[in-house]
């Protein structure tokens, strides 16, 4: 595989974006991750021996992870898109497009026999910047001529939501009732009633959840029978040769890009470590099954040799298991 060419390309893009970022304003500082770490106040822990989870390769108290993840995303929110393009060489756009096209959101009113069809009710978890939400609304409107399908973007991080709201202004959905934002923890969604959601999506988010099983159970609760849980997430590369190249890229280059472009090495170090820690395709498929979902086919679809994977689960209908 020719790594030199993309590296060169990345370098020139990188220089350009550094220049743009420098022009953009005062928010950018090379030390913002340290800044964030100082700001982070550890939440009060009720127990003497707190339960632990992993934060990248570190082991931290479960109660602390949420805050640490929150700090990471607060610090990367503004440069999120540039960074995604640089780190994935633009491929993350193809993954997201494929993800949405495959889900095919929206019901064509011409083939809907019931005139009171309200379109799909989609919940986009951890979709702060609205990447996947806008794609789904676009797909529903232009491919399926569906003007009713609506998306609720939920994110635990207000900074990411603010970024999404800002971006929504450039889309036709900014002031329409089809798009709404809410700050919520995916492990506990008290404002969303049972059996109310057609499609639950989470793109590059579930990795950061403290308790993935709790989030899956909550997804099962809010979905209508027949509703679909769809997850786009980094996964395990299948070919060992490609894996070696990919590991070089993710551990060698991504933190460096983070340092140069976003001024934040630690956040991107966390990103690659959390990818490494995320369960493999089969393990995650079994987690989805254990939450009560039916999985289609083998349960997942690999993208770009397994760098990312799409997992799906369908909530069964009573008596149809």
């Amino acid at each position, binding site marked *: 595989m020719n790594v030199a060419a993309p590296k060169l390309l990345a370098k020139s893009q990188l220089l350009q974006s550094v220049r743009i970022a420098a022009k953009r304003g005062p928010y950018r500082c090379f030390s913002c991750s340290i800044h964030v770490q100082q700001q982070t106040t550890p939440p009060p822990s009720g127990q003497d021996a707190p339960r632990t989870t992993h934060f990248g390769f570190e082991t931290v108290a479960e109660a602390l992870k949420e805050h640490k993840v929150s700090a990471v995303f607060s610090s990367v929110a503004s440069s999120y898109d540039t960074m995604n393009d640089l780190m994935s060489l633009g491929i993350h756009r193809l993954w997201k497009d494929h993800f949405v096209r495959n889900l095919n959101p929206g019901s*064509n009113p011409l083939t809907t026999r019931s005139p009171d069809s309200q379109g799909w009710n989609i919940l986009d978890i951890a979709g702060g910047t609205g990447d996947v939400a806008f794609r789904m609304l676009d797909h529903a409107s232009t491919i399926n001529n569906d003007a009713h399908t609506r998306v609720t973007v939920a994110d635990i991080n207000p900074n990411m939501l603010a970024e999404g709201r800002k971006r929504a202004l450039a889309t036709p959905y900014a002031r329409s009732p089809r798009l709404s934002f809410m700050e919520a923890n995916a492990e506990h969604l008290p404002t969303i009633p049972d059996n109310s959601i057609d499609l639950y999506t989470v793109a590059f988010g579930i990795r950061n959840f403290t308790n993935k099983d709790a989030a899956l159970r909550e997804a099962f609760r809010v979905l209508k029978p027949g*509703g679909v849980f769809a997850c786009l997430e980094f996964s395990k590369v299948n070919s060992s040769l490609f894996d070696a190249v990919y590991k070089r890229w993710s551990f060698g280059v991504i933190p460096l890009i983070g340092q140069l472009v976003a001024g934040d090495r630690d956040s991107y170090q966390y990103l690659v470590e959390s990818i490494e820690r995320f369960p493999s395709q089969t393990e995650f498929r079994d987690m989805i099954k254990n939450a009560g979902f039916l999985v289609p086919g083998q349960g997942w679809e690999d993208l770009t040799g397994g760098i990312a994977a799409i997992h799906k689960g369908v909530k069964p209908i009573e008596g*149809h298991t």
Partner: protein
Amino acid sequence: MALPTRLARSAIPKLRASPLLPAFQPPQFLLPTLFAPTLHPQSQTSSYHSYEHNPPSPFSVPESAILSSALQHVPAYGFTSTALKLGARDAGYLDVSTNLLPRGVFDLVNYHLVTERLSLKDRVQFPLQGDGGAGDLGRIGVGEKVRTLALARLRANGRVIGRWQEALAIMAQPTHLPASIAELARLSDEIWFLAGDTSVDTSWYTKRASLSAIYSAAEVFMTQDTSSDFVDTERFLVERLEDVERVGGWLGEVGEWVGYTGHSVVNVLRSKGVRI
């Protein structure tokens, strides 16, 4: 050749009830003792035809609920995601539930192929063959059984024939081609098995290969067939099968001639003192 009579006979699938297929019977006493430990009722697939166990349905309950209702919409909407969504709704699911089918419309085509293949043995049954006595209306040859079975399978496409070109196009897509060809191979294997073919030589392969080729050609022919009750397709199928028999016979004769001449030449040379 008495073509019209044979056509008339093969046009009607023999639907006489028979408890046992007159097909190749393996030594039954061997099966339970030798293979019992490996026979799991819940095993997903078996690569052989079992007389003792009905293989489990290859589709889960939700899948077959959605797909069987979706097939009802195929004449109107074709093999499309619209038919799938309408089928999901009929089965009590949501539009989004079509994500249960990872291959989308190909799963719909595949469902039609698999269910029609599996129902072949129930739809076409041959009478138990008697002892060949005076009352027996002549034994039905393997060739004629193959013709009847292939025709019955083709007729099963009749309901969706107006949309079958779409299905062929979906099957021919590079991502779906391997699965389609495998399914075609399973169909011709099923037909030869049900016809009672017991060959254990290389003709096992050539028979399946030639039937696959003829069947797929007849399927394409059928999409353009405007004759009533697909009479033209039937004639096409019969003629192609006869062609194969003729070519097979001719090849056999050529082989025989080559073998005889070769032996003669060697023997003549030996008689002249050549050390061979």
